[in-house]
């Protein structure tokens, strides 16, 4: 115990010395720091003209640096594939039965657990519909207010998690096996990459929404491009989170709990 405290004190002293002697980073609040001058003020002034999406973060995320978001969805997809590959084979049956922990032995039985009083089956269906409604709002609202592909995908995955974790006996809204979920994650990433390839075939650079081959007037193309990107990201992130959930749940049995 003492050894850890001494370790932390050493870190404090070391960092304190570094920060006292060096003064290399600009003060936090001032708006004349070089970080705001060169690139980000161009984004603020030209975002409405270039991408006509008032939410600057979505403009930078999906349009100016759209390639980063494609790679980000690929990171999520590769995490999903890695988890599926690592947990792919069925675990030996002997390992899946958990011996009840001795921790619970000593404790007196603490009355009816909370989730038994509220009728959880009714509650879950209610909550799920609200979450999905909110997720659709966040997805479509990505350009105006805070929101976008990731949050929407994660929210839909949360609706699925609520169903699987809280009320496993109700049939969930959409039944996912592991292979379908990973394939859906791949399709999400491909929708994103396909939008980029589409712009490339139509003559622009990769992910240049001005060149999308749809017959819509030019300055409406950017929101359409961003919307296609957001749906691709939402599908990718949702499917990956559900894949990881299924893969981990398969390895752990829940019905052996005693209480």
């Amino acid at each position, binding site marked *: 115990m003492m050894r850890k405290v001494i370790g932390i004190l050493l870190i404090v002293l070391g960092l304190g010395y570094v920060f006292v002697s060096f003064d290399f980073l600009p003060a936090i*609040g001032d708006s004349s720091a070089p970080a705001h001058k060169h690139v980000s003020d161009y984004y603020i002034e030209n975002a409405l003209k270039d991408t006509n999406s008032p939410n600057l973060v979505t403009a930078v995320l999906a349009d100016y640096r759209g390639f980063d978001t494609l790679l980000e969805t690929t990171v999520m997809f590769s995490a999903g594939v890695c988890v599926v590959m690592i947990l792919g084979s069925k675990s030996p049956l002997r390992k899946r039965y958990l011996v009840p922990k001795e921790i619970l032995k000593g404790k007196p039985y603490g009355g009816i657990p909370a989730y038994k009083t509220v009728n959880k089956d009714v509650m879950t269906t209610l909550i799920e519909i609200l979450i999905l409604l909110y997720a659709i709002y966040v997805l479509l609202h990505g350009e105006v207010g805070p929101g976008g592909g990731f949050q929407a995908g994660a929210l839909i995955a949360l609706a699925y998690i609520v169903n699987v974790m809280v009320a496993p006996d109700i049939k969930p809204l959409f039944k996912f096996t592991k292979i379908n979920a990973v394939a859906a994650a791949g399709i999400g990433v491909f929708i994103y990459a396909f939008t980029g390839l589409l712009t490339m075939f139509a003559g622009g650079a990769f992910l240049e929404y001005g060149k999308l081959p749809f017959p819509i007037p030019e300055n409406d193309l950017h929101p359409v491009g961003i919307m296609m990107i957001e749906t691709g990201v939402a599908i990718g992130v949702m499917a990956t989170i559900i894949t990881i959930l299924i893969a981990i749940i398969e390895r752990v049995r829940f019905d052996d709990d005693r209480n």
Partner: protein
Amino acid sequence: MPTLVLEAILLLALIIITMAVIFNRDLLIVIITYCAFSFIAMFLYIVMGAPDVAFTEAVIGVISTIYFIITLKKIDRRCK
């Protein structure tokens, strides 16, 4: 309450929670503290003026806590 002082207080809260995580024995307590950590981090992002990042951190904090708890089901709670 100027924002910078509020940020400093929230950062101190984060540091205290990290200490709690490091020095604790029971894994379930550690994971619940980690959930509190991700909540306070989300609150810090709002104070710093980043709603998008706060939204994502909230959702992903919930999901990673759920993953930790499912894995904890397989691993016994006692740890050195």
